[in-house]
């Protein structure tokens, strides 16, 4: 934080520099990243960049193929709600963070489940059961009239060939890498060009549920 604010004066010129250099800056050879001042990324960009660097290479390749959007939303009550836990957990569901994060921290193949494990986009929150509920029964207590909005649609570029915007809020989902790359990612939203690291260089947040505000020049 400190670093970022100290460097505030650099942000403008550096964004310009990023634009010119394009992916050269973000591809992330060790040599290069040493030269990159991460303080010049915006908050999320820096995080994404870092986690790209930390992502094991096998992750950019293998594909479990069994986690799709339908499954993804089945575990949720509305777009963005914390998913339920789709597998059994010890009744004690220990408060020890290693229980969940030992798999969901870094991902990887779980022989126990025969699947690649999805990676949490917010490993800084370690009290997992605070938000993620077990499923003991599917039987309802009573009927519900709950309805919510449709999940955001895919591939809605503003121009025919432009990179699609980020359709969802980034709150607790700032780390694109964790959901959009690797074998545990949801297939439909898995990117083919994960080697580019800094996602928000091209993909701008344009939350689909918010009205699009056109630029209007403020009056004099």
């Amino acid at each position: 934080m400190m670093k970022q604010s100290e460097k505030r004066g650099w942000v403008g010129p550096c964004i310009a520099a990023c634009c010119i250099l394009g992916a050269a800056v973000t591809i992330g050879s060790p040599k290069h990243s040493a030269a990159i001042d991460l303080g010049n990324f915006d908050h999320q960009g820096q995080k994404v960049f870092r986690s790209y660097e930390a992502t094991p290479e096998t992750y950019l390749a293998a594909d479990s193929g069994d986690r799709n959007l339908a499954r993804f939303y089945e575990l949720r009550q509305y777009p963005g709600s914390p998913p339920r836990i789709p597998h059994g957990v010890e009744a004690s569901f220990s408060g020890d963070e290693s229980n969940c994060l030992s798999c969901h921290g870094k991902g990887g193949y779980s022989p126990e489940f025969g699947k690649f494990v999805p990676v949490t986009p917010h490993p800084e929150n370690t009290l997992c059961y605070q938000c993620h509920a077990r499923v003991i029964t599917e039987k309802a207590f009573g009927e519900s009239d709950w309805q919510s909005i449709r999940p955001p649609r895919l591939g809605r570029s503003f121009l025919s060939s432009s990179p699609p915007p980020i359709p969802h809020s980034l709150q607790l989902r700032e780390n694109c890498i964790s959901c959009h790359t690797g074998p545990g990612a949801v297939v439909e939203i898995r990117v083919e060009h994960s080697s580019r690291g800094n996602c928000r260089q091209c993909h701008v947040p344009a939350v689909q549920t918010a009205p699009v505000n056109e630029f209007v020049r403020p009056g004099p």
Partner: protein
Amino acid sequence: MTTTNNQGDNEVTMKLNRRRFIRHAATSSAIATAGALFPGISFGSWPQLANNSGLVSWQKAPCRFCGTGCGVLIGVSDGRAVAVKGDPNCSVNKGLCCMKGYHSVQALYGKDRLTTAQVRKNGTLVEVPIQEALDLIADKLKTTRELHGKDSVAIYGSGQWTIPDGYVASKLFKGCLGTNNVEANARLCMASAVTGFMTSFGLDEPMGCYEDMDHANIFVTWGNNMAEMHPVLFSRMLANRKRRTNVRIIDFATRSTRTSQAADKSILFKPQTDLAVANAICYEIINRDWVNWDFVNQHVSFHRGKTDIGYGTEDHFAFKDQAEAISFEEYSRFLEDYTPEKVEKISGVAAKDIKYLAALYGDPALKVTSFWCMGMNQHTRGTWINNLVYNIHLLTGKISTPGNSPFSLTGQPSACGTVREVGTLTHKLPHGVVMNQHHREMAAGIWDVPLSNIDPKPSYHTVEMFRALDRGDIKFIWIQVTNPMVTMPNLRRYRDGGLKGDRFVVVSDVYPTPTTDIADVILPAAMWVEQEGMFGNSERRTQHFAQIVDPPGEAMSDTWQIIEVARRLGFEQQFPWSKEDYIEKIWEEYRRFHAGPKHEMAPYSVLRERSGVQWPYVNGRETRWRFNPKYDPACSNGKDFDFYGKKDNRAWIWARPYEPAAESPDNTYNFWLNTGRVIEHWHTGSMTRRIPVLHNAVPAAYVELHPEDAAELGVVNGEMVKIISRRGEVTMPAQIQGRGVPVRGMVFVPFFDESYLINELTLDAFCPISKQPDYKKCAVRLEKA
């Protein structure tokens, strides 16, 4: 795409080459799956809005479950609440919620929502227009008063009442109808916290705030399973432990919980002996000369009160404590009964663990925050144990500074805002108490009622109120936003009482419950953001919410229900507001009670804007730490601290002994019964069980047993156990090695499940000072069912 890669090639490294290779290898399969998609296909397992505009607007509100008071943003589309996210602007939770908060909006949409009024006619409830039901309520109130006197009618609300709900209830009953029969379920959850504050500091509510968590080095949770009950705060503690190197969490409890698991150290004690351990910590602090003498000499005075004070299990029980000043020497002589070695025998806590705790509190280099909630409050010596933990902080001067904080948490979203601050308890007024002439004058003035209306004598506290209903001293009771037919201890007596022939029970609620089952009139209530209102959380934060969606059918806010009845009784002058701005008008009237630097509340316009505002709010500034002149504008003595609540300008240390529980295990009833909550469910589950995710996670209650006790009883997980107390019995499935593990000789049962009414077993003993019952301790025996 190609261009950028080519540019990158100029800086090729081995690593990059490998990555690119892998990327290309993966391309074919990725394209195969992605290519099969129709752009714009929609998924989602939930029913989707028919006329979905596709747009969501986000509006702020405090979460409606629990006293943490997280700020939430509610997503609204086409007039319905469709999503929730944590409010990043709210300093309580900074954008994070727990599973109850995230799914809270689903509680609005259970299909069995009460949408019309119902009146019992010839034994069965029939639907009537709400205006007819309100006529009947007004009529019954009037005739009951005429026939049986002003104290034969009562209102029983809740810490889930909004501030305006509680305010109009108090104004109508205390101000207009002249009865102090106003109580709230918060009596069952934080009355001991109030009397603890009043006896130690002379003013209610915590001196610190949640920000203490970002400064403290040591957290001690006193009988407080924060990991489940205040999860967002607990997360903040864990985050602090992760971020800073010198943070430790010590869990001090009677049962091993998720909090114990996450803590650095778990210390278990025998029920009720926290009194002895707290005294032993003070003994050790004095004995080791860890007393902060500068602080004690300037800011502390010593007192003792009555001992052997009873348990209140009999009707008409009365008790009045009497404070007597003592010297420090007398106090430290009193503590000689509580050496760590002696207390080890009473409490089962090793003397070295007591010394360890004392060393943490006593180390001047460590900032210590103590948290507690129901474990200390639902205690037949609840006031005492609150006093005793303050003693520790006062002896060491660890109070009212960032990170040094004895912090009493509340359970309900507005236990502080509505019950403690508005004063919806029999002895209270919005400012002060009914016994005080000046306070009555102030209330009569602001309420525009004759002074003689306000009775200077308190009437019934909650347990006694339901006893009076059973006896027939109360004939009419109006219950709002709470479910006493699940939550009252010694439940059977009070349910039978409510069912007696000439009792008239009005229940305002959102879903059918065991309490609406005994009602003569049911009023459908607006829930949470279906109305405008305010809550007040544990850290003196007042949180406004606008009406965000419409209530269903004829459902009406509890505030407006009371206004409707008040007008029918002829109090138009006192309840003149219009539906458009009644909340604003009520707030501005109520705010007058708290004028002045000790409790100034923010104006309506500020509350509307912000995600909660802490009082005292003076000259546009919130007060984070009270009694500390750096933060608190009410301090005026020119010293480092000003404990202005007490006449001697000092905080009071109390000599309070260990006394046993009202009922302890014996040869026949050989187990302790402890009751409480789980993270998934709020109170009696009437809302959270209608939230699919939460119900499916914990669909039914269970009894937690120690594995060895289970083995002795011959039950395995899921087998039925019959629990029997002197008052009732219940048969329910066993849970062994679940999320909580009681010590040997104790069982634990969550109380959310109306199919297993555990409160038929609990005892209606209470703290004689606070009148708050003890739900954590009574004696039971077990049988394999």
